[in-house]
């Protein structure tokens, strides 16, 4: 592995200062399960890793019905699914965080890191998008927030500017009759990168007969995770029927831009988008009914 320097910081300002100073030669270090391997395999070059785990804000994990979920960027996955109230309130997020890499990976890897690594196939990003998550960013010019669907700009690339890093994610409290699910297709049952990932969320009307609104987000079928606006349009105000679900699935299939690679052909991926969108919508509906 190439040599690099290591600095453990205790405040957001310290982190911003070091990151701004070194530019793209410095990266924040949270769980490390992506960045350490990437540096070891020569896919990324860094002069410095800035360990942000000493900053209290990035480790914060809290929920209240008014504020919703505050998820520090460095919080490892296992803390999220072990948090009873959060697990009960956001099962669609738990779907994703319990799939990331296996138990030992979940002991370190964070949702923030998964998002910042910006793999098109990241498991947590579609779940964040369909929950309406906002990314809290700190940088030399202060703080800003952008929606999760705008965070990734290309494979391995994000909207972060020089000196900026992700501090936390915020997800609103689920409204009544809200349900969400994340499903992915992999050839084995764990440990694989998603061939296709689909996050779906719905808000049903009070008698559960129709959609008030819905969101569908896709992973691994475009250069970035994809919010499918046309699928949302296909759901809003429509009957909660198989026909509507099918229309949303077709919209998702049309929006997908999959490639052929060793994990799947474009044709197979497009087929799976349809299958998983239907399944995830049905799962989201079921959860919405149970809330």
């Amino acid at each position, binding site marked *: *592995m190439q*040599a690099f320097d290591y600095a453990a910081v205790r405040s957001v300002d310290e982190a911003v200062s070091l990151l701004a100073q070194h530019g793209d030669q410095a990266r924040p270090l949270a769980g490390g399960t992506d960045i350490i391997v990437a540096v070891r395999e020569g896919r990324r070059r860094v002069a410095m890793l800035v360990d942000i785990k000493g900053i209290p804000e990035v480790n914060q994990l809290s929920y209240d019905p008014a504020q919703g979920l505050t998820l520090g960027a460095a919080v490892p996955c296992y803390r999220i699914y072990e948090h009873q109230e959060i697990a009960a309130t956001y099962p669609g997020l738990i779907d994703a965080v319990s799939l990331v890499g296996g138990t030992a990976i979940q002991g370190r890897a964070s949702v923030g890191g998964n998002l910042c690594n910006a793999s098109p196939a990241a498991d947590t990003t579609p779940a964040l998008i369909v929950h309406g998550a906002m990314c809290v960013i700190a940088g030399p010019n202060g703080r800003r927030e952008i929606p999760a669907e705008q965070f990734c700009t290309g494979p391995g690339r994000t909207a972060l500017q020089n000196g900026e890093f992700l501090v936390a994610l915020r997800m609103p409290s689920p409204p009544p009759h809200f349900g969400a699910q994340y499903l992915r*297709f992999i050839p*084995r049952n*764990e440990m*694989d*990168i998603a061939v296709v990932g689909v996050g779906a969320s719905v808000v049903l009307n009070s008698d559960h007969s129709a959609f008030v609104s819905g969101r569908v987000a896709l992973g691994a079928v475009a250069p970035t995770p994809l919010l499918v606006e046309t699928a949302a349009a296909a759901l809003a105000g429509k009957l909660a029927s198989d026909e509507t679900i099918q229309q949303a699935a077709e919209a998702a299939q049309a929006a997908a831009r999959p490639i052929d*690679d*060793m994990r799947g052909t474009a044709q*197979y991926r497009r087929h799976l988008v349809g299958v998983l969108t239907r399944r995830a919508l049905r799962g989201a509906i079921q959860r919405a009914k149970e809330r």
Partner: protein
Amino acid sequence: MAETTTYQVIGTRPIRHDGVDKVTGRAIYGADVQMAGLLHGKVLRSPHAHARIRSIDVSRALALPGVKAVVTSADLPPAEDRTIQLGEGAVNLKYLSNNILAGDKVLYKGHPVAAVAATSPHLAEEALALIHVDYEVLPPVLDVREAMQDSAPLLLENLKTKSLGQETDKVSNVATHTQFKSGDVDKGFQQADVVIEREFTTATVHQGYIEPHNATALWNPDGQLTIWESTQGAFTVQRQLAPVLGISVAQIRVIPAEIGGGFGGKINLYLEPIAAVLSKKTGHPVKVLMNRAEVFESTGPTPGSYIRVKMGATKDGRLAAAQAYMAYEAGGYPGSPIGAGMMCIFTPYDIPNVLIDGFDVVVNKPKTAPYRAPGATNAAFAAETVVDELCEKLGLDPLQFRLRNAATEGTRRPDGPTHPRIGYLETVQAALDSDHYRTPLEGPNVGRGVASGYWFNVGLQSSVSINVNADGSVTLVEGSTDIGGTRASIAMQAAEVLGLKAEEVRPIVADTASVGYNDVTGGSRTTFASGYAAIEAARDVVRQMTERAARIWKVEPPEVTFANGVFHHTNAADQRLTFKEVAAQLGRTGGPVTGRATVAPRGVGGAFATHIVDLHVDPETGKVTILRYTAVQDVGKAIHPSYVEGQMQGGAVQGIGWALNEEYFYSNTGVMANASFLDYRMPTSLDLPMIDTILVEVPNPGHPFGVRGVGEVPIVPPVAAIANAIYKAVGVRLRHSPMSPGRVMAEILAQGK
């Protein structure tokens, strides 16, 4: 030996002798070896699948502080173009040497070109980037059928096809064409009422042992070379190393560490000569380790293949003829297991007319090495799937069909020899009688498949010595590295003869200077042959101890008998001496007692397996879920049943991985895209149910306790069994392995389901 013998130790399940070390992390595997002054080696490997090396410039690497030496093939003696025997196969020294460090050509991406020794592994890695190699890149050939064409790029410009035993002048990528023939297949197919002919392809698959290769070498100023490593055969390493380094066997001592899996992949030389020459150049011990990507790209996976099978049967369900065309990829140098595949493909059956043509073909992929019943899984995938189709056409249950056509003692194998006492029929009957087969499988998209397999097993050579301790325990010195519990199974056989408990026999696995010659741990031979040697050494101990008891009683040895650990005086029934009591008096009765034996047993028993699998196919995604799996096998006599079950379960699961997801993905320039456990997808615990085993014991008359080799045959049936089950589940037949979800889905969609 009578099948109703009651054993004291054989068939029990003692804790293995090396168990505590292994569950506490104390056991020393090859990468764990430490010593003073150790340097770390790393290997520079070709980025190209096919290229000529124009020049290598190591000067900048040598100049890096911390780098102590750089070597290339120039540091090995010129390799002789001759073959040496390794026991389980022969190897050409020139190819072996060139595979260790490339000469004028690189033949696969990952082919070693140079190596560095430095004070830390990270520095060694940095130094690799400073070595400049000037390559002339050549077009690669990556498919076996393409490589057989006259227009294909040639890998080895001097390779001439050996056809049907004769050298020819044809320079090509086809190293050999071999044929087995009996009867007349044309007549046989004419007699058949149903004939099925199908083509199959299989992708390259790796043994997947969790421990990467390692070697530590110390070349002393007096010319003595010591190697510490994880290997399946310390003596086999010694035998290869001597000619490759141009030194004598006497100068080499190989000390085997514990080994983290091999399955055939840790027999050939890879790192040892490199570590050795780096040590010679630096005067320090040098440790060289592979990382996971290097294991995939630069060791010995098993061949991708193309197989065409044609089988014909009469309407009463009797096989009339079978024909196969089998082309195996050998990788960069000749030597695929095509011969073994040919020996196994139709061997479960008694077929009067057989014709098998087999081709060993070089391609720009790593040189293949044995992988657990090498060549047989590919072959069984083809033949057992065609048998399934025949059964469907004939309306016959596939296990009843096998009963009707089973090879038995006296049946002639397609490669010539006749079967001795074998247990194939018994495995099929046991499968038919099993709870699994008798339980109906219900529901949509589920299916049950069966398949059989054969592996011939080998005997080869083993040496054991047994030293009697003053307290009546014994130390057993053997030379078979313990990959799967063989310390226990060997010790138990000695214990049985000596009338001792398994714990009272302390086995050690010794190095090449400390024990007689032993062939590899492989070929399903260790419990059979090293166990045989242990039995003979124990009998030697009993002979000597009988003499001591006689001396104590002042009688002649023929008047002393030994049974169940006790010496009896035939003429004085009340006189008895235990083994321990005699052991306590060795010093006074003539000195220490050491029993020894060296064996090369001929009575090898072949192994048969019949597997049953129930699975579900998700018709929307093509994903296969294994619901239930039963492995039935003739195991001869299970010395330690837990470890026999373990071999069956482990081999079956490797076969399941092979069937469902394992393959090398190659770019069109011959670069492996998935050289990592992330995308080379081996089964995890979540992908499997429990693996049930049924041990059928048909003793092998060629071994005192009836042992048959058990380790390899379990990997032979699974791919075919799964293919047959997928057909029952969703009505599509796959003829390419792996049958990954995308491929299954493509077939389902093509069928309009």
